[in-house]
């Protein structure tokens, strides 16, 4: 479903009305494991969609990236190498990048995969703050059902590509059965 919204998958049926600027946070790719890139470069790269024709990043984009990095508490270590960070910090950097790409909607694909529970909670809380303070819609795919239910406003359950449930988290029943 995410891939359809993001235009990554062309094989869908039906119409999608789509916003131009979406911040997307994909699942981890193995290329990034030893990619030499500083946090600053990664976050700045999020602004590329604003002025794709320019050769350099302009001032406005740089300011934007700076304020986003300050907000997420990664500005101090902006010169560090992305690959040397811990999983939680990397996720923070990628969230910062997606914030640079959008003011409205962030889409996350399993953002807490492979993170330990306390770091995962930090990420969820960070996302909740973004939602409440900056009015950003957050759309997230997760297998971490328990925790997703605590933080989500609306839940859609998909089983084998079919929608099984749409509604509020408190009404959600596990696989159609009572919990």
């Amino acid at each position: 479903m995410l891939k359809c919204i993001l235009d990554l998958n062309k094989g869908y049926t039906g119409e999608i009305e789509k916003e131009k600027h979406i911040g997307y946070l994909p699942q981890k790719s193995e290329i990034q494991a030893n990619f030499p890139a500083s946090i600053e470069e990664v976050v700045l790269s999020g602004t590329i969609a604003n002025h794709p024709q320019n050769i350099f990043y302009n001032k406005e984009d740089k300011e934007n990236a700076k304020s986003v990095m300050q907000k997420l508490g990664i500005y101090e270590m902006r010169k560090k190498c992305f690959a040397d960070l811990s999983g939680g910090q990397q996720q923070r950097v990628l969230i910062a990048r997606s914030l640079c790409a959008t003011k409205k909607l962030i889409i996350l694909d399993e953002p807490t995969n492979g993170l330990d529970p306390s770091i995962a909670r930090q990420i969820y809380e960070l996302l909740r703050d973004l939602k409440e303070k900056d009015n950003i819609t957050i759309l997230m795919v997760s297998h971490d059902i328990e925790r997703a239910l605590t933080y989500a406003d609306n839940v859609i359950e998909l089983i084998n590509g079919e929608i099984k449930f749409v509604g509020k988290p408190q009404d959600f029943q596990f696989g159609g059965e009572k919990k």
Partner: protein
Amino acid sequence: MIEIMTEMLSHAFIQRAVLVGSLVSLCAALLGVSLVLKRYSMIGDGLSHVGFGILTISTVLGVTSPLYIAIPGVAIFAIILLKIDNNSRVKSDSAIALISSSALAIGVAVTSVTTGMNTDVCNFMFGSILAMSKGDVILSVIVSIVVAILFFVYYRKLFVVTFDENFAKASGLKAKRYTNIIAVLTALIIVIGMRMMGVMLISSIIIFPALTSMRVFKTYKSVVISSAIISMITFWLRNLFILCL
């Protein structure tokens, strides 16, 4: 030694060789960063074998300037090879091995059927920077300048596409287009560089600078700059070494 050096540099054909050599090394190193990061270190080797196949065939057919046929031919194979990602049934490393050995086999078969082109074959295999004709030199200089300019213009986009292709696509960039640009630029540099380095050694000017810089530097910009510098230093060291022999 400096005297010998200045004397050597006063010859026009050596000046040409040095000019082409440094430009091609520079471009190869720049592209090398993207290729190594995309896990395509072997593509240089693979494409140069394809180039060898095409060059021998066109030489046998009596084409006067085989470079003009080799460049588009290799470009097509470069695009095919970069299209193969990890989701396809044949993995990219096997695809490169497959194409390069087949092309080499075809090249060798063609040369052994026809006789009397052994020096040419040797030139293709091991390269000879001094044997380049004036036309080749002009073509090489133009191509490498174009490659360097395009790399500079697309620098930001190449970074995004290399670092995270899915994010690039979600931001509305035509990721496929930039992958194709990398492929075509690589093909250009490999065909040009083959005249200089030869089929067997062309990979060295593509991957060594990038790999060395990646060990030392940790940001993308510094890696790109240092690969460019390393490629220049090694090119001149190579010249000195040859001179001393």
